[in-house]
């Protein structure tokens, strides 16, 4: 018996619906159809009236969730693809994100963003939006990489009193598996985790790039290079203390993200480490992002566009030769 990352997301929603009558899910094709990725499969049947198809209106989907949350509900909004949340950008960053600061009244909504690239998905079904939203105060941004995190963090997102953007990576949906779901739910938003201890270089990553980083570490291990891999898990807030502790051990920092290179999570980690841990660094901190173009359609182009394990290996060799 094993459970996938996608099934964990479904199970977390089922648990949230079961445990809390204030929870409901709103999104396109999520009811009878069970969602474009089947992450709400059978939930409409199990929870009548609480898993609702919405019109293709991303702005209004989020706006209605804001209203419902102010009435004490705990809405989960499913964007069909993270890319389409651009159509809800205004409601997310100007309405939801400002609500608590302006009025003192919390706005507890969870917006699920099926994010990241997949072969053949092309420019508009592949984007990573976490850096964009992380720029705005008032939002929590989660980027789970494992089955356990997909499950626990989603339940935590629903429980938190703030608007949460839950960036679930589509490439991981059916590729990442675990033996079983966590037996007990544990909340740990804002805490990074060391996924692989090492002493030579710190690699900071999240979501799908965790696996590229681990693959690179396995390759480098053959050559006697010992990589420490830190999974951020939530990019806002960002757990810089865990990163600094790692850099204190290794003296080298490489950040790996599927997002675009200008600004973003990688830049934020490097800026903070440079500021707070300059004395810890033995080489310039480096970053690997996807290429600085829209995300290409052809699988070969797509593979060359995103940061790969080979690119991580190459970059680390350069850093160690500095």
């Amino acid at each position, binding site marked *: 018996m094993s459970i996938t990352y996608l099934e964990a997301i479904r199970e977390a929603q089922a648990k949230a619906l079961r445990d809390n009558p204030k929870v*409901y899910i709103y999104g396109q094709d999520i009811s009878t159809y069970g969602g474009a990725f089947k992450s709400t499969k059978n939930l409409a049947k199990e929870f009548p009236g609480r898993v609702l198809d919405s019109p293709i209106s991303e702005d209004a989907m989020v706006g*209605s969730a804001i*209203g419902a949350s102010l*009435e004490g509900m705990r809405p989960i909004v499913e964007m069909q693809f993270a890319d389409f949340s651009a159509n809800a950008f*205004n409601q997310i960053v100007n309405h939801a994100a*400002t609500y608590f600061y302006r*009025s*003192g009244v919390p706005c507890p909504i969870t917006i699920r963003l099926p994010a990241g690239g997949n072969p053949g998905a092309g420019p508009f079904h592949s984007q990573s939006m976490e850096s964009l939203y992380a720029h705005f105060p008032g939002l929590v941004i989660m980027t789970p990489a494992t089955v356990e995190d997909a499950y626990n963090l989603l339940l935590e997102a629903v429980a938190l009193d703030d608007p949460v953007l839950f960036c679930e990576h589509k490439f991981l949906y059916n590729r990442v598996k675990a033996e079983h779901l966590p037996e007990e739910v544990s909340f740990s938003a*804002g805490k990074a985790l060391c996924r692989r201890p090492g002493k030579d270089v710190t690699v900071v990553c999240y979501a799908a790039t965790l696996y590229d980083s681990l693959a690179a570490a396995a390759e480098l291990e053959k050559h006697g290079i010992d990589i420490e891999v830190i999974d951020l898990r939530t990019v806002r807030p960002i757990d810089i203390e865990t990163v600094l502790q790692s850099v204190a051990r290794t003296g080298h920092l490489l950040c790996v993200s599927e997002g675009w290179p200008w600004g973003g999570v990688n830049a934020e980690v490097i800026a903070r480490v440079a500021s707070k841990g300059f004395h810890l660094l033995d080489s310039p901190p480096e970053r690997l992002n996807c290429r600085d173009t829209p995300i290409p359609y052809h699988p070969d182009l797509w593979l060359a566009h995103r940061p790969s394990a080979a690119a991580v290996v190459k970059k680390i060799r350069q850093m160690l030769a500095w």
Partner: protein
Amino acid sequence: MLNTLREPESETIRLGFKEQYVSAFKWMLLARTVEDKVAALWHAGKIAGGCYLGRGQEAVSGAVGVMLRPGDIFAPLIRDQAGRLAFGEPLFDILRTYLGKKTGPMRGRDGNVHRGRPHEGTYPMISHLGTAVSLVTGVMMAKRMRGETGFVGATSIGDGGSSTGSFHEGFNMAAVERVPLVMTVTNNRYAYSTPNARQFACHDLVDRAIGYGVEGYSMDGTDLKECLEVANHAVERARSGFGPQMIVASCVRLSGHAEHDDGFYMDKALLESPIGRDCIRVAQSYVVEQGWADEGTVQEWRREAKAQVEEILQQVQREPGPDPAEEDWHSLATAHLIDQDFSE
């Protein structure tokens, strides 16, 4: 099922109509009075930022406001002072918010018309027009999911705001969800400086009701009697389960977009036309004609409104502004997730 009414059903004057009319008229007077005071403060340099008046729209807003009951909700827009007061917003809120006082509902963090008390059913607007339409839809969906029926949600927009995608998405969603939403679209002829001809190409905005599949009404926004009749009908239809209601009010904005704008671009002929009338003068004549009050009594109401505003203003002016050194600078409700690097 489409049931579009171009005109309100004619109805005999309801029981209690006089009380409703007089009540709405008094809220209109108070709204005009407090906004005149706010404008004076703005011109005296006492208010930072913009100053947005509902002058000429008091009948539309007040009529909707008096139809709402406790438990209903109201997401007001820029020119809704009369409706806010009728729905129960204390006079303190407008003055404290315009003056940025820490004692106000927005604590100096937001100003002027961006104010509300979400737990009391009024929502602080954001400047991006149309966003409240889906917000109210969500509030009413939540009430329905919890089994709370018999309530309505009201919100307002103008001819300009009705052109936004957010308005369309929200109103279409409201119609699909069939929530009890009363949508008042006040066509005051100008969105900032942009005339109707550059805003929409349909004959009349109320024609859009058919497209949305909702019940729609036109009304003369300068005539409180008609506003009350239409608002009463629409609110009761929404309350009785007939889905969203669209009211399109005609009037002319009797000021610039804001106090920094003298409205030089406005067509003077519009102001001379029947929809250019001042709804407060029209209502005052009606009250006197009906024998509900004489001119002297109305003057007394005006004096009372002025005295009330002056008294509250004097108190509010003595209240402290926010102290930047005491601000927590927190944008999250969850204390342990606040970014410590930026909050010190």
